[in-house]
Protein backbone atom coordinates (compact mmCIF):
# COMPACT_ATOMS: atom_id res chain seq x y z
CA UNK A 1 0.00 0.00 0.00
CA UNK A 2 2.82 2.40 0.96
CA UNK A 3 4.63 1.46 -2.23
CA UNK A 4 1.52 2.38 -4.27
CA UNK A 5 1.25 5.63 -2.35
CA UNK A 6 4.92 6.57 -2.85
CA UNK A 7 4.64 5.67 -6.55
CA UNK A 8 1.65 7.97 -6.85
CA UNK A 9 3.63 10.72 -5.10
CA UNK A 10 6.55 10.22 -7.49
CA UNK A 11 4.18 10.58 -10.43
CA UNK A 12 2.76 13.75 -8.96
CA UNK A 13 6.28 15.12 -8.61
CA UNK A 14 6.92 14.18 -12.25
CA UNK A 15 3.75 16.04 -13.36
CA UNK A 16 4.81 19.16 -11.55
CA UNK A 17 8.24 19.06 -13.16
CA UNK A 18 6.63 18.45 -16.55
CA UNK A 19 4.27 21.34 -15.96
CA UNK A 20 7.11 23.69 -15.04
CA UNK A 21 9.13 22.58 -18.05
CA UNK A 22 6.17 23.06 -20.41
CA UNK A 23 5.57 26.55 -19.03
CA UNK A 24 9.24 27.37 -19.51
CA UNK A 25 9.10 26.14 -23.10
CA UNK A 26 6.03 28.22 -23.78
CA UNK A 27 7.79 31.29 -22.39
CA UNK A 28 10.84 30.56 -24.53
CA UNK A 29 8.61 30.03 -27.56
CA UNK A 30 6.94 33.37 -26.91
CA UNK A 31 10.26 35.08 -26.45
CA UNK A 32 11.57 33.70 -29.75
CA UNK A 33 8.44 34.77 -31.60
CA UNK A 34 8.91 38.30 -30.33
CA UNK A 35 12.56 38.16 -31.26
CA UNK A 36 11.70 36.90 -34.74
CA UNK A 37 9.11 39.57 -35.23
CA UNK A 38 11.58 42.20 -34.04
CA UNK A 39 14.28 40.93 -36.41
CA UNK A 40 11.90 40.81 -39.33
CA UNK A 41 10.96 44.42 -38.72
CA UNK A 42 14.60 45.32 -38.34
CA UNK A 43 15.30 43.56 -41.74
CA UNK A 44 17.51 41.01 -40.01
CA UNK A 45 19.43 38.42 -41.97
CA UNK A 46 17.47 35.65 -43.69
CA UNK A 47 19.69 32.91 -42.15
CA UNK A 48 19.06 34.14 -38.62
CA UNK A 49 15.29 34.16 -39.21
CA UNK A 50 15.39 30.63 -40.64
CA UNK A 51 17.46 29.40 -37.71
CA UNK A 52 15.02 30.90 -35.25
CA UNK A 53 12.07 29.45 -37.16
CA UNK A 54 13.68 25.98 -36.97
CA UNK A 55 14.31 26.46 -33.27
CA UNK A 56 10.68 27.43 -32.75
CA UNK A 57 9.55 24.37 -34.66
CA UNK A 58 11.81 22.15 -32.58
CA UNK A 59 10.53 23.65 -29.34
CA UNK A 60 6.92 23.33 -30.49
CA UNK A 61 7.47 19.62 -31.27
CA UNK A 62 9.10 19.06 -27.93
CA UNK A 63 6.27 20.87 -26.23
CA UNK A 64 3.71 18.63 -27.98
CA UNK A 65 5.67 15.52 -27.01
CA UNK A 66 5.84 16.58 -23.36
CA UNK A 67 2.14 17.42 -23.31
CA UNK A 68 1.36 13.94 -24.62
CA UNK A 69 3.59 12.31 -22.02
CA UNK A 70 1.97 14.49 -19.38
CA UNK A 71 -1.44 13.14 -20.41
CA UNK A 72 -0.17 9.57 -20.32
CA UNK A 73 1.26 9.98 -16.83
CA UNK A 74 -1.92 11.66 -15.69
CA UNK A 75 -3.91 8.63 -16.89
CA UNK A 76 -1.48 6.30 -15.14
CA UNK A 77 -1.88 8.30 -11.96
CA UNK A 78 -5.66 8.09 -12.17
CA UNK A 79 -5.32 4.35 -12.61
CA UNK A 80 -3.08 4.14 -9.54
CA UNK A 81 -5.53 6.21 -7.53
CA UNK A 82 -8.38 3.86 -8.50
CA UNK A 83 -6.30 0.83 -7.62
CA UNK A 84 -5.36 2.39 -4.29
CA UNK A 85 -9.04 2.85 -3.43
CA UNK A 86 -9.85 -0.70 -4.52
CA UNK A 87 -7.02 -2.14 -2.40
CA UNK A 88 -8.10 -0.02 0.55
CA UNK A 89 -11.63 -1.40 0.22
CA UNK A 90 -10.32 -4.95 -0.06
CA UNK A 91 -8.22 -4.40 3.07
CA UNK A 92 -11.27 -3.13 4.87
CA UNK A 93 -13.33 -6.12 3.78
CA UNK A 94 -10.59 -8.56 4.71
CA UNK A 95 -10.31 -6.95 8.14
CA UNK A 96 -14.04 -7.45 8.66
CA UNK A 97 -13.89 -11.06 7.50
CA UNK A 98 -10.83 -11.76 9.64
CA UNK A 99 -12.41 -10.31 12.77
CA UNK A 100 -15.67 -12.13 12.10
CA UNK A 101 -14.04 -15.55 11.70
CA UNK A 102 -11.63 -14.92 14.60
CA UNK A 103 -14.49 -14.00 16.90
CA UNK A 104 -16.64 -16.96 15.87
CA UNK A 105 -13.97 -19.45 16.85
CA UNK A 106 -12.82 -17.66 19.98
CA UNK A 107 -15.15 -19.47 22.37
CA UNK A 108 -16.88 -22.79 23.02
CA UNK A 109 -19.68 -21.25 25.02
CA UNK A 110 -22.94 -21.65 23.09
CA UNK A 111 -24.58 -18.39 24.28
CA UNK A 112 -21.37 -16.49 23.63
CA UNK A 113 -21.18 -17.84 20.06
CA UNK A 114 -24.78 -16.73 19.46
CA UNK A 115 -23.95 -13.25 20.84
CA UNK A 116 -20.95 -13.06 18.51
CA UNK A 117 -23.10 -13.99 15.49
CA UNK A 118 -25.54 -11.25 16.56
CA UNK A 119 -22.70 -8.73 16.88
CA UNK A 120 -21.40 -9.59 13.41
CA UNK A 121 -24.86 -9.20 11.89
CA UNK A 122 -25.35 -5.81 13.59
CA UNK A 123 -21.87 -4.30 13.40
CA UNK A 124 -20.55 -5.66 10.13
CA UNK A 125 -23.66 -6.29 8.04
CA UNK A 126 -25.72 -3.48 9.56
CA UNK A 127 -28.96 -5.33 10.26
CA UNK A 128 -31.56 -3.75 12.51
CA UNK A 129 -33.97 -6.65 12.76
CA UNK A 130 -33.02 -10.30 12.42
CA UNK A 131 -33.35 -13.74 13.97
CA UNK A 132 -31.14 -16.78 14.36
CA UNK A 133 -33.12 -19.98 13.91
CA UNK A 134 -31.94 -23.49 14.76
CA UNK A 135 -33.36 -26.65 13.24
CA UNK A 136 -34.75 -29.25 15.61
CA UNK A 137 -33.97 -32.46 13.78
CA UNK A 138 -36.52 -34.47 15.73
CA UNK A 139 -39.47 -32.24 14.85
CA UNK A 140 -38.03 -30.77 11.62
CA UNK A 141 -38.93 -27.34 12.91
CA UNK A 142 -36.89 -24.16 12.75
CA UNK A 143 -37.18 -22.03 15.90
CA UNK A 144 -35.74 -18.63 16.80
CA UNK A 145 -33.10 -18.87 19.53
CA UNK A 146 -31.98 -15.24 19.34
CA UNK A 147 -33.27 -12.08 17.72
CA UNK A 148 -32.91 -8.31 17.52
CA UNK A 149 -35.25 -5.50 16.53
CA UNK A 150 -38.60 -6.68 17.90
CA UNK A 151 -39.68 -3.02 17.94
CA UNK A 152 -39.37 -2.66 14.15
CA UNK A 153 -40.41 -6.21 13.27
CA UNK A 154 -42.89 -7.52 15.85
CA UNK A 155 -42.80 -11.29 16.22
CA UNK A 156 -39.19 -11.66 15.13
CA UNK A 157 -38.36 -13.23 18.50
CA UNK A 158 -40.83 -16.09 17.97
CA UNK A 159 -40.43 -16.71 14.24
CA UNK A 160 -40.52 -20.37 13.28
CA UNK A 161 -41.03 -22.55 10.21
CA UNK A 162 -41.29 -26.19 9.25
CA UNK A 163 -38.56 -27.68 7.08
CA UNK A 164 -39.61 -27.28 3.44
CA UNK A 165 -42.50 -24.88 4.16
CA UNK A 166 -42.40 -21.30 2.87
CA UNK A 167 -39.25 -19.32 2.11
CA UNK A 168 -37.55 -20.13 5.42
CA UNK A 169 -38.35 -23.82 5.24
CA UNK A 170 -37.16 -23.99 1.64
CA UNK A 171 -33.87 -22.25 2.44
CA UNK A 172 -33.28 -24.75 5.24
CA UNK A 173 -34.22 -27.65 2.99
CA UNK A 174 -32.22 -26.67 -0.11
CA UNK A 175 -29.32 -24.90 1.63
CA UNK A 176 -29.59 -22.06 -0.91
CA UNK A 177 -29.51 -18.47 0.42
CA UNK A 178 -32.44 -16.16 -0.29
CA UNK A 179 -32.11 -12.40 -0.84
CA UNK A 180 -34.37 -9.49 -1.71
CA UNK A 181 -32.83 -6.23 -2.79
CA UNK A 182 -34.42 -3.76 -0.40
CA UNK A 183 -33.97 -0.92 -2.91
CA UNK A 184 -35.85 -2.68 -5.65
CA UNK A 185 -38.54 -4.51 -3.75
CA UNK A 186 -39.17 -1.97 -1.00
CA UNK A 187 -39.34 -2.83 2.68
CA UNK A 188 -43.15 -2.75 2.69
CA UNK A 189 -43.30 -6.29 1.36
CA UNK A 190 -41.16 -7.71 4.15
CA UNK A 191 -42.99 -10.07 6.48
CA UNK A 192 -41.98 -12.67 9.04
CA UNK A 193 -42.27 -15.37 6.38
CA UNK A 194 -40.82 -13.13 3.63
CA UNK A 195 -37.52 -11.71 4.91
CA UNK A 196 -34.93 -9.51 3.27
CA UNK A 197 -32.41 -12.34 3.44
CA UNK A 198 -32.26 -15.88 4.75
CA UNK A 199 -28.86 -17.52 5.01
CA UNK A 200 -28.55 -21.21 5.83
CA UNK A 201 -26.06 -22.21 8.52
CA UNK A 202 -24.36 -25.19 6.93
CA UNK A 203 -21.76 -27.73 7.89
CA UNK A 204 -20.84 -29.03 4.45
CA UNK A 205 -24.32 -29.73 3.01
CA UNK A 206 -26.01 -30.24 6.38
CA UNK A 207 -28.19 -27.27 7.38
CA UNK A 208 -28.38 -26.70 11.14
CA UNK A 209 -30.24 -23.39 11.10
CA UNK A 210 -30.77 -20.01 9.47
CA UNK A 211 -29.90 -16.37 9.89
CA UNK A 212 -32.94 -14.40 8.78
CA UNK A 213 -32.66 -10.66 8.19
CA UNK A 214 -35.77 -8.49 8.10
CA UNK A 215 -34.51 -4.91 8.15
CA UNK A 216 -31.24 -3.07 7.64
CA UNK A 217 -30.17 -0.06 9.71
CA UNK A 218 -31.72 3.22 8.61
CA UNK A 219 -28.42 4.46 7.17
CA UNK A 220 -27.91 1.34 5.05
CA UNK A 221 -29.85 1.15 1.77
CA UNK A 222 -28.99 -2.32 0.55
CA UNK A 223 -26.52 -5.17 0.90
CA UNK A 224 -23.01 -4.49 -0.37
CA UNK A 225 -20.57 -6.90 -2.00
CA UNK A 226 -18.77 -7.59 1.29
CA UNK A 227 -22.10 -8.47 2.95
CA UNK A 228 -22.45 -11.45 0.63
CA UNK A 229 -18.90 -12.50 1.58
CA UNK A 230 -19.87 -12.19 5.23
CA UNK A 231 -22.99 -14.25 4.61
CA UNK A 232 -20.88 -17.02 3.04
CA UNK A 233 -18.52 -16.85 5.99
CA UNK A 234 -21.39 -16.93 8.46
CA UNK A 235 -23.06 -19.80 6.63
CA UNK A 236 -20.02 -21.99 7.19
CA UNK A 237 -18.14 -20.65 10.22
CA UNK A 238 -21.12 -19.71 12.37
CA UNK A 239 -22.62 -23.14 11.74
CA UNK A 240 -19.41 -24.89 12.84
CA UNK A 241 -19.01 -22.61 15.84
CA UNK A 242 -22.64 -23.06 16.94
CA UNK A 243 -22.51 -26.82 16.39
CA UNK A 244 -19.21 -27.37 18.19
CA UNK A 245 -20.19 -25.15 21.11
CA UNK A 246 -23.46 -27.06 21.43
CA UNK A 247 -21.60 -30.38 21.39
CA UNK A 248 -19.14 -29.03 23.92
CA UNK A 249 -21.92 -27.93 26.30
CA UNK A 250 -23.59 -31.33 25.93
CA UNK A 251 -20.36 -33.21 26.61
CA UNK A 252 -19.66 -30.89 29.57
CA UNK A 253 -23.07 -31.74 30.98
CA UNK A 254 -22.48 -35.46 30.42
CA UNK A 255 -19.05 -35.21 31.97
CA UNK A 256 -20.52 -33.52 35.04
CA UNK A 257 -23.17 -36.21 35.34
CA UNK A 258 -20.58 -39.00 35.05
CA UNK A 259 -18.31 -37.20 37.50
CA UNK A 260 -21.14 -36.86 40.00
CA UNK A 261 -21.99 -40.53 39.52
CA UNK A 262 -18.37 -41.54 40.06
CA UNK A 263 -18.15 -39.33 43.13
CA UNK A 264 -21.25 -40.99 44.49
CA UNK A 265 -19.80 -44.45 43.86
CA UNK A 266 -16.43 -43.67 45.41
CA UNK A 267 -17.93 -42.03 48.53
CA UNK A 268 -20.12 -45.09 49.13
Amino acid at each position, binding site marked *: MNEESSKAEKFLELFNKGKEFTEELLRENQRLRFRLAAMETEHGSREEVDRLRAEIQQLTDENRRIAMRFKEVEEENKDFAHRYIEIEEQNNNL*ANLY*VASYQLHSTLDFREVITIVQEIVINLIGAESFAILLLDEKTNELKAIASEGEDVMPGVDTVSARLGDGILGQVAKTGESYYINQDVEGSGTIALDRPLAAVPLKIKEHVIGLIVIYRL*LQQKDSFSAVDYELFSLLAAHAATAIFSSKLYSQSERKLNTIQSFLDLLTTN
Partner: protein
Amino acid sequence: MRQLISFSLKRFKNAKIIEAVDGVDALKKLSGPEKIDLILTDINMPVMDGLKLVSLVRQNAQLKAIPIIIITTEGAEEDRERGLALGANAYISKPIQSSHLIKTISELLAV
Protein backbone atom coordinates in the same frame (compact mmCIF):
# COMPACT_ATOMS: atom_id res chain seq x y z
CA MET B 1 -17.29 -4.49 18.03
CA ARG B 2 -14.36 -3.86 20.35
CA GLN B 3 -12.36 -6.54 18.53
CA LEU B 4 -13.00 -5.02 15.13
CA ILE B 5 -11.97 -1.61 16.42
CA SER B 6 -8.87 -3.02 18.14
CA PHE B 7 -7.92 -4.77 14.92
CA SER B 8 -8.41 -1.59 12.90
CA LEU B 9 -6.31 0.38 15.36
CA LYS B 10 -3.33 -1.91 14.75
CA ARG B 11 -2.56 0.48 11.88
CA PHE B 12 -1.47 2.97 14.54
CA LYS B 13 1.76 1.30 15.59
CA ASN B 14 2.14 2.94 19.01
CA ALA B 15 -1.50 2.95 19.99
CA LYS B 16 -2.41 1.43 23.33
CA ILE B 17 -6.05 0.42 23.59
CA ILE B 18 -7.85 0.57 26.92
CA GLU B 19 -11.26 -1.09 26.86
CA ALA B 20 -14.20 -0.26 29.09
CA VAL B 21 -17.42 -2.22 29.48
CA ASP B 22 -19.72 0.79 29.93
CA GLY B 23 -19.77 4.55 30.52
CA VAL B 24 -19.02 4.32 34.25
CA ASP B 25 -16.07 2.00 33.64
CA ALA B 26 -14.85 4.39 30.93
CA LEU B 27 -14.97 7.37 33.32
CA LYS B 28 -13.01 5.37 35.90
CA LYS B 29 -10.35 4.55 33.34
CA LEU B 30 -10.26 8.13 32.07
CA SER B 31 -9.52 9.30 35.61
CA GLY B 32 -6.67 6.80 35.94
CA PRO B 33 -2.95 7.46 35.47
CA GLU B 34 -2.92 6.70 31.73
CA LYS B 35 -3.06 9.72 29.43
CA ILE B 36 -5.91 9.15 26.99
CA ASP B 37 -5.62 10.71 23.53
CA LEU B 38 -8.95 9.64 22.04
CA ILE B 39 -12.28 8.19 23.17
CA LEU B 40 -14.30 5.82 20.97
CA THR B 41 -17.74 5.11 22.35
CA ASP B 42 -20.99 3.45 21.41
CA ILE B 43 -24.27 5.10 22.37
CA ASN B 44 -26.04 1.96 23.53
CA MET B 45 -24.16 0.77 26.60
CA PRO B 46 -25.33 -0.64 29.90
CA VAL B 47 -25.24 1.41 33.15
CA MET B 48 -24.29 4.68 31.44
CA ASP B 49 -24.84 5.31 27.74
CA GLY B 50 -22.42 6.98 25.35
CA LEU B 51 -24.25 10.32 25.21
CA LYS B 52 -24.10 10.71 29.00
CA LEU B 53 -20.41 9.79 28.86
CA VAL B 54 -19.73 12.45 26.20
CA SER B 55 -21.59 15.04 28.22
CA LEU B 56 -19.71 14.21 31.47
CA VAL B 57 -16.33 14.21 29.72
CA ARG B 58 -17.04 17.62 28.24
CA GLN B 59 -17.95 18.99 31.70
CA ASN B 60 -14.74 17.70 33.26
CA ALA B 61 -11.91 20.24 33.19
CA GLN B 62 -9.20 17.56 32.97
CA LEU B 63 -10.86 15.51 30.25
CA LYS B 64 -12.79 17.98 28.14
CA ALA B 65 -10.09 18.40 25.50
CA ILE B 66 -9.99 14.69 24.58
CA PRO B 67 -11.45 14.07 21.11
CA ILE B 68 -14.48 11.75 21.11
CA ILE B 69 -15.82 9.55 18.31
CA ILE B 70 -19.27 8.04 18.66
CA ILE B 71 -19.80 4.72 16.84
CA THR B 72 -23.40 3.64 16.81
CA THR B 73 -26.31 1.94 15.09
CA GLU B 74 -28.35 5.14 15.52
CA GLY B 75 -28.00 6.61 12.04
CA ALA B 76 -30.73 9.27 11.99
CA GLU B 77 -29.63 12.83 11.35
CA GLU B 78 -31.12 14.04 14.65
CA ASP B 79 -29.11 11.41 16.57
CA ARG B 80 -25.99 12.59 14.81
CA GLU B 81 -26.75 16.23 15.57
CA ARG B 82 -27.48 15.37 19.19
CA GLY B 83 -24.16 13.52 19.57
CA LEU B 84 -22.20 16.34 18.00
CA ALA B 85 -24.09 18.98 20.00
CA LEU B 86 -23.10 17.23 23.22
CA GLY B 87 -19.48 17.63 22.22
CA ALA B 88 -18.48 14.55 20.20
CA ASN B 89 -15.95 15.36 17.48
CA ALA B 90 -17.16 12.74 15.03
CA TYR B 91 -20.13 10.44 14.62
CA ILE B 92 -19.78 7.14 12.77
CA SER B 93 -22.83 5.02 11.95
CA LYS B 94 -22.66 1.23 11.79
CA PRO B 95 -21.91 -0.97 9.93
CA ILE B 96 -18.30 -0.19 10.73
CA GLN B 97 -15.95 0.52 7.84
CA SER B 98 -12.46 0.33 9.26
CA SER B 99 -11.03 2.61 6.54
CA HIS B 100 -13.50 5.34 7.53
CA LEU B 101 -12.69 4.84 11.19
CA ILE B 102 -8.94 5.08 10.55
CA LYS B 103 -9.38 8.21 8.44
CA THR B 104 -11.48 9.89 11.15
CA ILE B 105 -8.99 9.01 13.89
CA SER B 106 -6.04 10.21 11.76
CA GLU B 107 -7.77 13.53 11.16
CA LEU B 108 -8.63 14.05 14.83
CA LEU B 109 -5.18 13.13 16.09
CA ALA B 110 -3.41 14.71 13.11
CA VAL B 111 -1.28 11.60 12.57
